[in-house]
């Protein structure tokens, strides 16, 4: 048996009996306003890259979205707002025209213009730059900057989601002239953007220091300095917010929320994750090449029990491949049902003969991955499925992911990068995509057509039909759409973004002052 950190934390709390009680007992209730000029954030890991086009990981984009601006900004309400572009419109089918904000300056004093926007987007897909966002703007054909305040983007085919692409990773705007003069390596160590935060210093695995940009076009943030502390150990991270050493902690699991809420000076807030936790399926390997078997697997999972027991209610049961909150999410579709009897029927119909079904899980790559695997394997055994759980180390998972060599099922937490099925289901499941283990001609035809249509009615119909096909073939078995939770001091007024952006601009963050 393997003990998780959480088990030991529980043990520790029980042993030190007093520690199980609300932590601040005996201390005067802390003020719920503050005069602080410094925001301190504790996150689960350190930053490795400051070049915004070098990373898609949450510990890094949290800061790159604040050191840099995008042309378009997705606010915590899920809608698109002006960023460095003040307005945009589609001309014809394939030409997007963006009007750019004037008078914006980079942190080094250089003025921002359309040449920067053009160079930033072109840089992402130029193979010689070896960037990690190289696939974000593949629909772009060419870009023009006719004057400093106008950017014209021509797409290869109609691309209804270009503004949404510009609002997420890959879309951060970097200073062309500065980048050319210092080179990418220096730029990655000393980033310069137009965003509300300026880079000051970074001590690896200790602290990242940023300061407020006093001349930010959206208003100076409500603090002078921001310190990011990587605190990998959950118990230490939660203790740091309970004790008031940090103002915000990220990646708080459901079983810690009561402690944070019971403490006089802190509270927990969450946002429904813009994405799903799914068991992806290698539909090429028997018995998973049989849709009836996959239907049985989906029917035999009691997702309500998983949400209630393992997530303490911090999640919802998905209805299909489209996350709640996304474009074309069908609110009329019921949550995926639990029906072990029907599962057995379908196994019989499929001629299932007890072939092994393997879940290759990680332990802690996504929250609750291993406990969920064990629970699901037990549910499957109850339904007569010969289920087995194998635990992989994270780098082995990465290798299998790259080589497409998973045996059966594995955890994936697809993020909906565009708030649209195109940025999640189609990005991952399309032919040649990272999870291309199953093909269906009609599904492929619709996915391709919906990607390149500016007719939202057509797209709606296409995604409805794709959902139907999906629910028959289950290239993913969706399990949960969880909340992502944060712990805050009560004097922090802030709403989390569902897509892991950490929005501290004036409109979304303030300290409650006395």
């Amino acid at each position, binding site marked *: 048996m393997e003990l998780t950190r959480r088990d030991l934390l529980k043990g520790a709390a029980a042993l*030190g009996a007093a520690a199980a009680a609300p932590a601040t007992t005996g201390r005067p209730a802390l003020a719920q306003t503050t005069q602080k000029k410094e925001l301190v954030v504790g996150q689960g890991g350190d930053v490795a890259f400051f070049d915004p086009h070098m990373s898609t990981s949450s510990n890094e984009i949290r800061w790159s979205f604040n050191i840099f601006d995008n042309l378009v900004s997705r606010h915590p309400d899920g809608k698109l707002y002006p960023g460095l572009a003040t307005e945009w419109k589609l001309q014809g089918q394939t030409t997007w025209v963006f009007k750019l904000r004037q008078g914006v300056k980079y942190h080094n004093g250089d003025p921002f213009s359309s040449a920067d926007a053009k160079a930033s987007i072109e840089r992402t897909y130029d193979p010689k730059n070896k960037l990690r966002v190289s696939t974000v703007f593949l629909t772009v054909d060419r870009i023009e900057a006719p004057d400093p305040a106008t950017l014209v983007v021509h797409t290869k085919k109609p691309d209804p989601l270009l503004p949404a692409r510009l609002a997420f990773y890959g879309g951060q705007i970097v200073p062309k002239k500065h980048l050319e003069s210092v080179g990418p390596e220096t730029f990655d160590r000393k980033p310069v953007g137009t965003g509300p935060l300026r880079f000051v210093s970074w001590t690896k695995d200790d602290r990242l220091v940023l300061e407020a940009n006093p001349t930010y076009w959206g208003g100076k943030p409500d603090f002078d300095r921001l310190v990011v502390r990587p605190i990998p150990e959950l118990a230490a991270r939660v203790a740091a917010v309970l004790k008031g050493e940090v103002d915000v902690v990220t990646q708080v699991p459901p079983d810690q929320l009561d402690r944070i809420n019971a403490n006089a000076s802190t509270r927990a807030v969450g946002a429904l994750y813009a994405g799903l936790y799914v068991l992806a399926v290698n539909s090429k390997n028997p018995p998973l090449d049989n849709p009836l078997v996959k239907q049985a697997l989906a029917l035999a999972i009691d997702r309500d029990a998983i949400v209630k027991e393992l997530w303490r209610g911090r999640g919802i049961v998905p209805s299909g491949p489209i996350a709640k909150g996304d474009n074309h999410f069908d609110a009329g579709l019921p949550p995926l049902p639990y029906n072990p009897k029907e599962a057995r029927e379908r196994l019989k119909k499929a001629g299932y003969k007890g072939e092994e079904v393997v879940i290759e899980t990680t332990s802690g790559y996504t929250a609750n991955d291993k406990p969920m695997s064990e629970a699901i394997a037990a549910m499957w055994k109850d339904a007569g499925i010969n289920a087995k759980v194998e635990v992989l180390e994270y780098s082995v998972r*990465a290798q299998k992911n790259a080589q497409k060599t998973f045996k059966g099922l594995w955890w994936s937490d697809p993020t909906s990068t565009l708030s649209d099925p195109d940025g999640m289901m189609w990005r991952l499941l399309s032919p040649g995509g990272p999870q291309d283990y199953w093909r269906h001609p009609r599904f492929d035809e619709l996915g391709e057509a919906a990607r390149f249509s500016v007719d939202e009615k057509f797209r709606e119909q296409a995604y409805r039909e794709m959902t139907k096909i999906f629910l028959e073939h289950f290239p993913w078995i969706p399990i949960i759409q969880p909340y992502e939770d944060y712990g805050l001091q009560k004097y922090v007024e802030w709403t989390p973004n569902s897509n892991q952006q950490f929005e501290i601009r004036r409109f979304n963050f303030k300290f409650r002052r006395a």
Partner: protein
Amino acid sequence: MRGFVPFLGHRVFRAVIALWLVSTVVFVVMRLSGDPVPLLLPPDAPRSEFARVRTELGLDRPLIVQYGVFMRSLAHGDFGRSIHFRESALAVVGGYVAATLELGLTSFFLAALVAVPIGLFSAMRRNTMIDHAAMAVALVGQSAPTFFLGILFILLLSLKADLFPTSGRGGWQHLVLPALTLGAFTMASIARLTRSAVLEVLNADYIRTARAKGLSEAWVVAKHTLKNAAIPIVTITGLQFGTLLGGAVVTETVFAWPGIGRLAIQSIYNRDYPVVQCTVFLAAVMFIVINFCIDLIYGLLDPRIRAR
């Protein structure tokens, strides 16, 4: 000191052999453990990209050629470029060494300074309540896993009693909990060993003689007991330094301490071969240097060893 130069030469030769073996084992084990390339690229990167990065990192060459390159560079003090951080591995590790030395040496001296008097006192007051209590605490220190102790200290001494910060590196207050956590095992081992070593010496004839001569108890303890019990104590203390380096991996993670232990773990996960190789190499050097110092101390403590 007669024969010191040959002694030194012999030790240096053995140290070089040890470092070569350690480097080779780490080189082989890291390459057996997996490929860094899938961790560097987005999952939707094309196959050609994987091949290109592998070539760029020299991972497409035969293992024996990679080993030759590694050894040649090592001889020049070059550990290569970190795959993850994209800068010199030595510079990356160098940024973490100070934090580990600060924590490791504090724990080491804390352990030695606390444990030796406790062990001595326990032995002198054998089978009293104090002896039983001290040895019970030592047993807990020796058997509790490092990160369990760390979390317990955070909950009790930081969160509950509000004595120290929960984590991070800063002033001396930040050092207390990680140093206690890291030093607990060492402290317990040294205390227990000191107790038994002192007990053994206390039964020796020359102690009886010293007492019979009418020497004061303090003189008997300081001059005759401690000095004779010192050899095993010093030996275990030196060996415990290795335990400290191992424990640093966990302690630094629990307390968000930016040291080489935490760097090593992350670099292993990232398959950052050059950083892991450099970290292990430096740790081996530290261990060898400490044990060399211990050997010199033997000579100072025991003239018989010096004469050999």
